[in-house]
């Protein structure tokens, strides 16, 4: 499989007062197309920072050796408006808090995502993929946390992104609901060949991925290739 994303020697520092802190220290990584990559680590390890940089939500520290290549295009030098267009056409996002529009129903929330895409999509089919067909006309306050998260997955999928970034997608959910959500993600990956990058602190979730990277203190400390993905319903939780 070819690489969809190539990350070369990226660094990110933050200032707390006058003291600089390296949140990410000279990280390099390749991500293959259609792959499920799980970034694992404890709180403060740099995994969310890595996700934010790779997704273009944040900028890397300037360095001539640092690059983030998407299909051989270096997005680290894009301006804000160019990056917005890039995200619109290529990337999807799921966050721990679902951040759906409360006055729109399930169908309409997913439509919000699909209206950004270039091609017309079958919204009903996407909703069915995440297992919410019977809830299409419901509003957010009528759904459980897991159902809402699945709506946000459907919204992200609706614009047919090449890559989907998931930051602690099950962080606010219990085991049963969390596994259902993970199932939806895996099915989306299988059906649409969307590359998934999942950030989590839950080691059980790592088993659903093709590649697992462990992060600590802003560095990749381990990179594991998973021979076989584990079905989400079988993963240990916690």
């Amino acid at each position, binding site marked *: 499989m070819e690489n969809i994303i190539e990350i070369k020697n990226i660094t990110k520092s933050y200032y707390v007062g006058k003291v600089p802190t390296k949140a990410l220290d000279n990280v390099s990584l390749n991500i293959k197309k259609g792959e499920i990559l799980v970034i694992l680590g404890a709180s403060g390890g740099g995994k969310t920072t890595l996700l934010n940089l790779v*997704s273009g939500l944040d900028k890397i520290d300037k360095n001539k050796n640092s690059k983030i290549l998407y299909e051989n295009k270096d997005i680290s030098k894009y301006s804000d408006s160019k990056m917005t267009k890039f*995200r*619109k056409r290529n990337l999807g996002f799921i*966050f721990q*808090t679902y951040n759906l529009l409360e*006055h*729109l129903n399930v169908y309409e929330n997913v439509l*919000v995502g699909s*209206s950004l895409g270039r091609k017309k999509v079958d919204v009903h089919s996407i909703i069915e993929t995440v297992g919410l067909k019977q809830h299409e006309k419901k509003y957010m306050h009528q759904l459980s946390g897991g159902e809402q998260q699945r709506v946000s997955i459907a919204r992200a999928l609706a*614009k047919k992104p090449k890559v989907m970034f998931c930051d602690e997608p099950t962080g606010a959910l219990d085991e049963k609901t969390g596994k259902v959500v993970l199932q939806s993600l895996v099915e989306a990956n299988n059906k649409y060949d969307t590359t998934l990058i999942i950030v989590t602190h839950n080691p059980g979730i790592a088993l659903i991925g093709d590649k697992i990277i462990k992060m600590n203190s802003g560095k990749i400390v381990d990179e594991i290739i998973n021979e076989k993905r584990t079905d989400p319903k079988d993963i240990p939780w916690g």
Partner: protein
Amino acid sequence: MKLLLINSLKGLKKKKVQMFGIIIMVMLSTAIYTGMNTAIDRLEDKYYDYLNDQNVEDISVAVNVNYENDITIEHMNSYLNNELSNATSEEKEILNYYINYLNNKTMELPLSTKVALENIFTKYNVLNKIKMNILSNISTKYDFDYELELSKIISEDDNLIKVILYDDNNEINKTYLVDGRYPKNENEITILPGYAKVNKINIGDSYKIGDNTYEIVGFTYAPDYIYPLISFSMPIFDEKTNNIVFMNQTAYEKVIGINDNSFAIKYNGEIKREFELNSNQDINDLKTENSIFKIFNENNISFDYNTFTRIGRIGAVQLEFSTDRLFADYFLYVLLGISVVIIMIITKKRIDDERLQIGVLKSLGYNKYSIATSYLVYPIIGSLIGGLLGYLIGISVNKPIATIYLSFYNVPLENYIFNLTYLKNSVLIPMITLSILSYLIAIIMLRKKPLSLLKEGSNLKINIFTKLINKITSIFKFEYRFKYSLAFRSIGKLFLVSITSFCTGMLIILVLIGSNLFSNVIKESFSGMKYKYMIYTNSVGFEQNNTENKDYILNMNLEVKNIKKINGENVEIKEDTSFSIIGTDTASNYLEILDDNNKNIISNLTTNKIIVNQNAKKLLNLEIGYIIELSYEDITLEYEIAGFSEEYMGYSAYVLRSDLSNKLGLQGNAYNMIYSDDDKYNNISDLKEEEQQQIAYVINLEELKDNIMKQMDRFNGSIYIIIIFASIMALVIIAVIANIVVEENKKTISLMKVMGYKNKKISNIVLNIYTPFIVIAYLLSIPVTIKILESIVSALTKDIEMTIPIQITPSLAALGLLGLLIAYYIAISLSKKVLNKIPLAIALKRE
């Protein structure tokens, strides 16, 4: 983007109070705008046609006889053989002297002789004939027609009646028939329809004037009395007691009253009708405006009180049109300005509340422009509903508003004509203004990057002010530290609460000042007048002996030649500035000249000293010690300013009567006005004929004050309408702010309840934090509002040379603040009641 708009639209349900606020603001402003403009249209369209159709005069003039040139020996001989044949021997001596003068013009003709001649000619009804001759001589040169307008003024019981001779041959100021027919017979009259309506009189009823009873055969308007300023004894029209009656020649001759005649002039060229008289314009330039006044420069034609009252009678309604339209437009923009503030608050709050969702949308690829567009829902819905409602209300109230105008102005009303402009403006102006501004606000607020928006607590950053306040309050108890750190946490919200309190404060101050505005002027103007009657004489008399406890006054209108400062520099004055000079004795029975400390400064009047009124002081920037040079014909009079009187109408000044008389070449005891307490002046027809003949008109000061206060009540009626509107606006703003304050602190309030804090404590810590800022904002609004009002009033009154003192007492200001705070706390407690209905668990839920 369509979906984002639908999301915003559905979200309106949660913002009912705030949306209601916007709709009310837009509705009020467009209702006033449409109602007033439509009502004025109905009057104004008809007004100009009316002036043409009834051939209303261009000017009324007083003809001054130039005794050196205007009378010939032939004229005098004719008069001596006819009207003057019964003159007394004393009078004949004067007349003979005059004839000798006409034969030999190197002789002197002093002012005192001229005054005596005028008295004689008045007595024997020769004066009008002389004046008609003068006009006849110049009418061809200036191409005008003229007519002598005969009328009498009768004061009877409470009524003031102007009786006008009806002549269907009159070509100028043709009587306008509203209903019925014109009077043909001796016992028939017509009256004003407004007077008839208020007094429940119909055509066919009887009406008594003096000892005579007449039958009312019709209702008419006198077209040169659009605002029926009948007499200076009643400068404010009262529909209930002021009447204009038309009758035929025979009936007119039998009526006893004070003669009030004038000459009406109508030019034959096209003359533009202007509100302001400007004597410098050129009659030869007939194609352009205002060419009617050259006549005043070249001949002995002058303004008289009729000319000035013409401004009020015929032209003042134009000022009404322009000021009312200005008021309607101004109100529209003020209320829209307040709506913008409310929209700013709503938009900011909405964006703050939805920052996480917005962060995700921006991450997904929505740009700030499409997100900002979704917030246009508020201004569009608000202006559409408010504008349409306001327009419909405006249309429905245009007739009552027009009817109010008709109780002041006698002019026929045009039918209602639909005007698309007002509909467009009522909807489009608010929509465009509010939409553009709220879009810009949203763009600015959406400038943050997605990651900043997505960070938890990104809206709760500690800003520099909070840090500073925390440092300052660190020595105080926890409660105060908590309170003020909450207040300063969001500078934007604090600023908005302060700004809206400032706007509300301005409205309250406007209401408080406005409700006392004119009554203050009236109070100040009358405070020095201790007399009951002001009697104006037809000509200058000479005081023989004062046995009747009167004040004799010499009142002259003198032109200002020059005013010099103490350092010799000239004060800038407009050409044709004149003063009404009141020559009084210091030993006055009835007059006090009060300064701004309420001290009587009449004793400052000595030879060559003058006391000027406050209005002149303010408008001409005068100081004590300045020298005023006045002129009368070729006489120059010089005075030094010795003080200022608390009077605000026009330019007037007091001097010593004997000094004024001497300077004019008259005897020291000359007068043309009397102040008296004698009730014999209440009914002129009861006086001896000789005394009646000398009197031009009488002002009953008690009646005048009553009349003005009654009019003030009516005027205050419109002030009360403004007060109601301003109060509604203030309440809407307060309700919106209180609602937002409670909503913003929903989580803090709920958390504190869960922890066990009592309601009173919660209110004290969380909700009352803005009280000091509201108080400060209100106090700041007081001087700003006063300044704005002063400039508005100055702009409105500059044409009529009047100032109106703008002031507010500390007790009134405190009352305003109390009202504001009470309203604020009521609104807070109502908003809290809504909050109490939400279960704590829901209120604390993560958004």
